[in-house]
């Protein structure tokens, strides 16, 4: 995202007084010792990320006896698997979209508070905790509050006579995953987007107004173009976050393995349908392909956005 960097440099240069930056100092090229500093991290990523991913993907191309095969790829044409992919995609996009919009609105509201004030630090801290509040704990929290015997469910039923489960126990089906997912998407959006929003300088607004613009002009010509890349980057992170979520869904919805991570679990651990362990590799491959497509789309958007910033 180097173009963003350029903009920052320009603005900071303008802000600090033109020419004060980097004048008289030659850019140092990264030398060998500097590259050596990257080694531990590189080794860590290779061993714990790249290698397992490679092995997992490769496993899809072999039978359980170790012979090369393309047979497992046929799983990607299986209607059940396709359905799971479709569910995963719409669930991720829907919760990411809602999370991004609500999270961005919340971030914007936070700008009204002083940066070192109590409200900001409370929201910052809460977001940090809640974005990581997922899995079995989150599922249990939802079961305890809006489960069939949950506190809120029983309260609504007894006090207002409202039965939120009149049409069946939707909380334990696919629609029931939307709420818990949004629950961790919004704070994640705040964490990632608030710093970008805070980077909007009030001077830019002043400059726009001085030059005869309106606040609307500012947002249209300056604010949105500057924020778009970080907004979409955050949105992308939210999609990936939901797309790969497993534990929350596993604890909430036990039938039908409606999303891809649950299908992977089934392939790996089933005690009734045997010999599909290698299909899991193919499913993981499918997930990576979809994320790659999303990343490419993001890169294209990024290029468009850069044009506005030029």
């Amino acid at each position, binding site marked *: 995202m180097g173009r963003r960097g350029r903009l920052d440099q320009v603005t900071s240069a303008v802000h600090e007084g033109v020419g004060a930056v980097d004048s008289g100092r030659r850019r140092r090229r990264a030398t060998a010792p500097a590259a050596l500093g990257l080694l531990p991290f590189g080794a860590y990523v290779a061993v714990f990320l790249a290698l397992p991913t490679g092995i997992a993907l490769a496993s899809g191309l072999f039978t359980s006896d170790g012979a090369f095969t393309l047979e497992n790829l046929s799983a990607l044409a299986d209607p059940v698997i396709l359905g799971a992919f479709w569910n995963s995609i719409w669930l991720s996009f829907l919760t990411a979209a809602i999370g991004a919009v609500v999270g961005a609105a919340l971030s914007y509201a936070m700008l009204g508070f002083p940066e070192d004030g109590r409200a900001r630090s409370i929201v910052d801290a809460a977001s940090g905790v809640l974005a990581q509040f997922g899995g079995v704990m989150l599922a249990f929290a939802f*079961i305890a509050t809006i489960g069939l*015997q949950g506190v809120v469910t029983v309260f609504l039923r007894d006090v207002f006579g409202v039965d939120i*489960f009149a*049409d069946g126990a939707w909380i334990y*089906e696919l629609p029931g995953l939307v709420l818990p997912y949004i629950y961790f998407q919004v704070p994640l959006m705040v964490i990632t987007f608030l710093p970008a929003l805070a980077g909007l300088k009030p001077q830019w607004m002043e400059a726009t107004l001085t030059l005869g613009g309106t606040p609307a002009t500012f947002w249209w010509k300056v604010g949105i173009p500057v924020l778009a890349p970080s907004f979409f980057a955050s949105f992308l992170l939210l999609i990936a976050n939901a797309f790969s979520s497993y534990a929350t869904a596993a*604890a909430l919805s036990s039938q039908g393995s409606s999303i891809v991570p649950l299908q992977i679990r089934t392939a790996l*651990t089933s*005690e*009734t349908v045997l010999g599909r362990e290698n299909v899991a590799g193919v499913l993981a491959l499918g997930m990576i392909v979809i994320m790659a497509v999303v990343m490419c789309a993001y890169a294209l958007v990024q290029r468009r956005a850069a044009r506005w910033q030029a």
Partner: protein
Amino acid sequence: MSTRRGIAALAAAASITLLLGACSSGGADASGGDASTDAATATSLADFGSLADLEAAAKAEGQLNVIALPRDWANYGAVLDAFAAKYPEITINEASPDASSAEEIQAAETNKGLDTAPDVFDLGLTVALENTDTFAPYKVENWDSIPDELKEESGLFTGDYGGYMSIGYDSSKFDAPESLEDLLGSDFKGSVAINGDPTQAGAAFAAVGLATVQNGGDLDDFGPGIEFFKELNAAGNMLKLDVTSATVASGETPVVFDWDYLNVAHTADNPDWKVKILPGTGYAGYYNQAVNADAPHPAAARLWQEFLYSDEAQNLWLAGGARPVLADAMEEAGTIDADLFEALPEAPSEVVVPTSDQSAAAGELLGSEWAAAVG
């Protein structure tokens, strides 16, 4: 005596399974020539000399790795504690209590050659039949008392305890269901759960099997069972939450299809919990013990087997509501806990167990149809 007949029926049904099950009768590979070679190739107590010799060898190893034994499953907690009390010199390492049978085998493969590999397995029949090359044959002292139809003839795996598919329900909220059709009624709205997803879990698979035979089908085709759950789902009665002791205690899962011994255990979570085995054809299943061919503690693994088939451990399973494999022999010998044995739920008059071919076909059918049926 109905329970007695129940076990006989169970055994008869299971025998067909084993006869038709394609079993490989390959022996286990002997592992390298270290001090434990004798233990690793021992196929019965005679190879050690006596039980005392086996105990000495196991104590010398000092460790036993078990996997996938939930403490609230068939009273396994008490079984583990009894072993620990009897042999305090042997440390039991319990791994992944909630793992599936397939994951037990994976753990053995992943940890092959390490001292963390499981020594013993407790497996559903489908997985046991599929993985006989992972097991070392071992025949416990009571081998001859175990019904033939519940053991693999060369001792590669042996039935340990079993039960019938049943319906557990909260009697403070529901009347006892007398048939599957009752569960389709509006009073069961959003209340009926099965223990897991049938494309993954043996107990859930058995629930579909029971629905199949109760719905006028047979085990060659699980279609009628899938059809029943489809109707249940369409009626809005199906609950898709994973069943645990906690969900039963809180009332979140008020009606549960599960093995009778697991449902019986839920009375501890909810005093109003009752277990119903539907009249008509029943569905039975036995779990199986096997020794890992690459067990890091081969003597301890075999001592564990001897312990499990002792009267003490068999009665502990019985206390957990399961039907131990030696029940008939123990009843004749007068060593069974008669009160517990009488207290088991009434056994169905006719019992079926799927063959491995039927299981494979059913698995395939569930794989392609289940998600859509309950989606």
